[in-house]
């Protein structure tokens, strides 16, 4: 039996890197190994950045003071994902949200599950669901997703700076 004629070829484009997160983010990732979320404080404004980049984005100063932030916080904004695309590993629809962790001064992007997509809202209180500690490594993948805590919504006043 003759094989089908070739009509398309797969063109591989691939770049292999070794990346390093640098000193500041290495400390953050090491914290994750023991289930800690370590932000860093700007010495000028006192704001806590999480994840830290090692310097204050507003003042350019090294952020040497480490501050543990909570693994729960407030949804400041969100997006319901309804489209399947190539790299999607979750069932649609699902929710991505900016979450202002308690103790942090900058919201952080995460997936929220165990919530009806019609229920997700600004101000909703959510908490991290962690993998079993035996599986923890120096990675944010230790956190599977966030889920609603059931607490009353945070007041808009508490996160209005971050919207």
């Amino acid at each position, binding site marked *: 039996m003759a*094989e089908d004629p*070739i009509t398309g*070829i797969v063109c591989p484009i691939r770049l*292999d890197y070794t*990346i390093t997160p640098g000193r500041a983010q*290495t400390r953050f990732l090491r914290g994750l190994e023991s289930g800690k979320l370590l932000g860093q404080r700007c010495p000028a404004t006192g704001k806590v950045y999480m994840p830290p980049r090692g310097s204050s984005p507003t003042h350019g100063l090294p952020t040497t003071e480490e501050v543990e932030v909570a693994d729960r916080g407030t949804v400041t904004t969100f997006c319901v994902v309804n489209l399947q695309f190539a790299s999607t590993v979750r069932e649609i629809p699902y929710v991505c949200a900016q979450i202002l962790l308690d103790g942090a001064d900058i919201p952080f992007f995460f997936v929220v599950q165990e919530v009806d997509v019609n229920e997700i809202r600004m101000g909703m209180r959510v908490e991290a669901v962690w993998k079993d500690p035996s599986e923890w490594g120096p990675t944010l993948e230790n956190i599977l997703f966030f889920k609603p805590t059931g607490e009353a919504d945070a007041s808009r006043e508490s996160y209005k700076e971050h919207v």
Partner: protein
Amino acid sequence: MSRKAETDATKGILTAPYVLEYSYTRSTGPVLGRFFSGLRDKKIEGIRVADGRVLVPPVETDPVTGDELDEFVQVGEIGTVTACSWLAEPRAEHPLDKPFAWALVQLDGADTGLLHAVDCGSAENLEVGSRVEVSWRDERHGFITDIECFRLLGD
């Protein structure tokens, strides 16, 4: 791949592999489609242009007149090196995992050079004018890599 040694300054800092990859399927069109299909059957086909030359790989339109082309011509598996460059340190993506030469091979019956790898041991063994022949893969899928490489004639 070489990795920088850990120094006092980098001690304890994490590193991780990071792969950026986007493979995409490219439509071959009828002419290159026939060329790739031919490779699967160990057949190398070029195409004849208005001035009589045979181009390998084939193209859809005449590079001089712009006319559509359709006269396929099978060429030989043996050819002559018209240009070459030695690659001493192949990387993972290269077609051979040992030092080899990139070469333009003008197959017998063709008037242009086909770029491919030549497995010839060392740079001294290959020069412009060297005669080489195709080494086919056992498993062929209709891609340029169905030709594993070229080897010196008689090797």
